[in-house]
């Protein structure tokens, strides 16, 4: 088990290093100079040069890479070009929106998907199964930003139960914060729950066809007991994989939903950083997201070993 974990950890570190090189190089070749962008059309050349040296952009690229990496090891991301505050502060503020939103959406989707998937699998080819499959098909087909707009139209504009977007801040109270995240979380959770339900259902049905289920049935378990006691645990591997991928997606990929609800999350920070050429923010958030994705993958790998004893022995 230890060797397995160490092996995973090494590939995690290598992946991170490779990602840092790729991110840095890509942002080097991106056209557009942050200083000229900030100073606009009427700026004089000497003003742009003054700002470039103030931002530390006049140093050679390898030197800037090393400075950046050394800073990262000390948890120091540098100072945002445009906001002029430490990048770590920006990221920290945004994480307090993105992370709760991702967890909220993930909780919702798991709470919907687990019962729905088990229910559909245990009643294969019944009207219940068909309706679950129909709904999930719809859930996957509907783009989440469009679903988000429908939610806003109904709950914000017509019923006026929720505000159309924005985030008051946790200091205004946990309930207010959760309320502001509810519509975005529902919009994010719908497609995720649909995918998860379908994966769980088919994984369960596969497992139900295995020899050990037949043995369990032969020993006197009912179909439902066999499903709960034996099939469910074996069906968890694909479900965990999907859950891990979804969590990464929810942190990084909520950009569109964050735009629809104008939430101050990480996705919008990167998006804004790219258009404003705040490259240091883009760099730092990208590497952080890579770290998050790799860490989640690592945890999922460990979870595999937990549900599947065969992996532990390797």
């Amino acid at each position, binding site marked *: 088990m230890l060797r397995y974990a160490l092996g995973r950890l090494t590939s995690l570190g290598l992946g991170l290093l490779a990602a840092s090189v790729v991110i840095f190089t890509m942002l080097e070749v991106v*056209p*557009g*100079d*942050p200083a*000229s*962008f*900030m*100073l*606009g*059309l*009427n*700026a*004089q050349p*000497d*003003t742009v040069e*003054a*700002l470039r040296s*103030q931002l530390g952009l006049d140093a050679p690229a390898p030197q800037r890479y090393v400075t950046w990496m050394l800073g990262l090891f000390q948890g120091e991301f540098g100072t945002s070009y*445009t*906001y*002029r*505050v430490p990048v770590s502060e*920006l990221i920290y*503020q*945004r994480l307090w929106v993105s992370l709760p939103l991702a967890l909220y959406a993930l909780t919702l989707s798991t709470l919907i998907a687990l019962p729905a998937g088990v229910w559909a699998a245990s009643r294969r080819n019944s009207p219940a199964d068909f309706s679950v499959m129909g709904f999930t098909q719809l859930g996957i087909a509907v783009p989440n930003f469009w679903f988000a*707009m429908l939610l*806003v*139209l109904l*709950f*914000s*504009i017509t*019923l*006026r*139960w*929720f*505000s*159309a*977007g*924005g*985030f008051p*801040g946790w200091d205004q109270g946990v*309930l207010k914060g959760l*309320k502001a995240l*509810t519509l975005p979380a529902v919009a994010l959770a719908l497609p995720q729950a649909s995918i998860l339900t379908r994966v769980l259902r088919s994984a369960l049905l596969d497992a139900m066809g295995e020899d050990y289920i037949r043995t369990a049935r032969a020993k006197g378990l009912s179909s439902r007991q066999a499903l709960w006691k034996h099939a469910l645990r074996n069906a968890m591997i694909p479900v965990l994989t999907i859950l891990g991928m979804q969590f990464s997606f929810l942190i990084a990929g909520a950009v569109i939903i964050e*735009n*629809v*609800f*104008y*939430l*101050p*999350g990480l996705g*919008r*920070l990167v998006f*804004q950083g790219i*258009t*404003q*050429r*705040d490259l240091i923010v883009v760099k730092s958030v990208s590497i952080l997201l890579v770290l998050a994705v790799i860490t989640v993958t690592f945890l999922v790998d460990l979870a595999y070993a937990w549900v599947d004893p065969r992996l532990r022995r390797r």
Partner: protein
Amino acid sequence: MKGLLKLMTASALLTLVWGGAHAAKRDITLGMQLEPPNLDPTGGAAAAIDEVVYANVMEGLTRFDANGGVQPALAESWEISGDGLNYTFKLRTGVKFHDGTPFDAEDVKFSLDRARAADSTNAQKALFAGISEVSVVNPGTVRVTLSKPNGGFLFNMAWGDAVIVAPESAANNATNPVGTGPFVFKQWVKGDRVEIERNASYWGAPVKLDRVTFKFISDPTAAFASMMAEDVDAFSVFPAPENLPQFEMDPRFQVIVGSTEGETILSTNNSRAPFSNLKVRQAIAHAIDRQAIIDGAMFGFGTPIGSHFAPHNPAYVDLTGRYAHDPAKAKQLLADAGYPNGFKASLKLPPPSYARRGGEIIAAQLRQVGIDLEISNVEWAQWIDQVFKRKDYDLTIVSHTEPMDIGIYARDEYYFQYVNPEFKSVMAELDAESDPGQRTALMQKAQRIISDDAVNGFLFQLAKTGVANAKIRGLWKNAPTQANDMTGVYWVD
């Protein structure tokens, strides 16, 4: 699920309770499409900076009023010497910065010297280029000496980039702006909002609002939803003109349409063949149907222009008839220039919808006379790098939003690559002239020269299309500078 239902019911009840206590509102939430990168107007070009702090938090010696006129601000009055070189400003007394430090002539000297210093990062450093010395006469008086007369000096001092800052706080203005204005900066929740509050010890007339919240909503659909849900009280520039008719129909809202300083033009690289040929540029001018572009790209909002000058300016001359829409004549001119079968060129379009939508329409109009445009969409940072800095372009569409910026045609190295000694001498005369009548004549001459030369395709003046709650009064109709002056804004019952 039950919890969620409870939450929904509770919030519905709360809305009802709040809805009852709507009268005598003293706070306002203003939507903005772009978040300012920082809050220091002396250290960045982004219009969003001024849209938060100008006239609200920060003030200069002079200021723009709602109609673009120059009014006294921190300078109570001024005297101009006979040769036009010395401006003596009498400053207001008893003025304090928000951090409590008193305002005096030393602050003025500090601010102006800082803006024109060698290591200055002021985006409009040219505004201060003519200053040769700033001297403190006494705490209440400051004298600015120019190296040559500049009829536009008081106008220049009204820009957001020329606000007066204090040496104690200037370095932190990017994140914590300290000014002398009627509102005090309260907090900035990055990515979401900036809040400012009434300054109880303001030197001038007290404002009628206790609190202003600027909320940043970039997506046009989200902006629409936020207005409809009444989360946001007003957008001084609403990002989607196509939604305006719907707001007009709704009695809860008012639509405020005015003019901006944004001359939207088809910028042309005058140094590149075939655009270096006057006949080709004239052909393009005749091929353009301005009204079709305004209708198609801006849903009818905008005023056609025939030169680089704002129609609401008293010195404006209507030159839209100089090159009327006439495809046949355009073809003839192209043939005369040696392009009977037209030619191919590129058109680079920055992100705003006036450019992206307008570009498609212009490409279709020019195709009718034989000019085949290859469109490429670029981001702002790319646009500044390729088009503006390296002049690597044929045609592009952009709105020049700085007030009174016809002077850019006198800059040889500017991205139009237009060189005309006659125009430059007119501009030099204008700089030296302070008689209003003479200035008007010179400005009109300047408009005619660039119109005759068809330097760029002059398209339309960008409209300011605002939406506000019907009970709000005092918002600016026009935008003589990019600002949200909240000093005169109030609610009626």
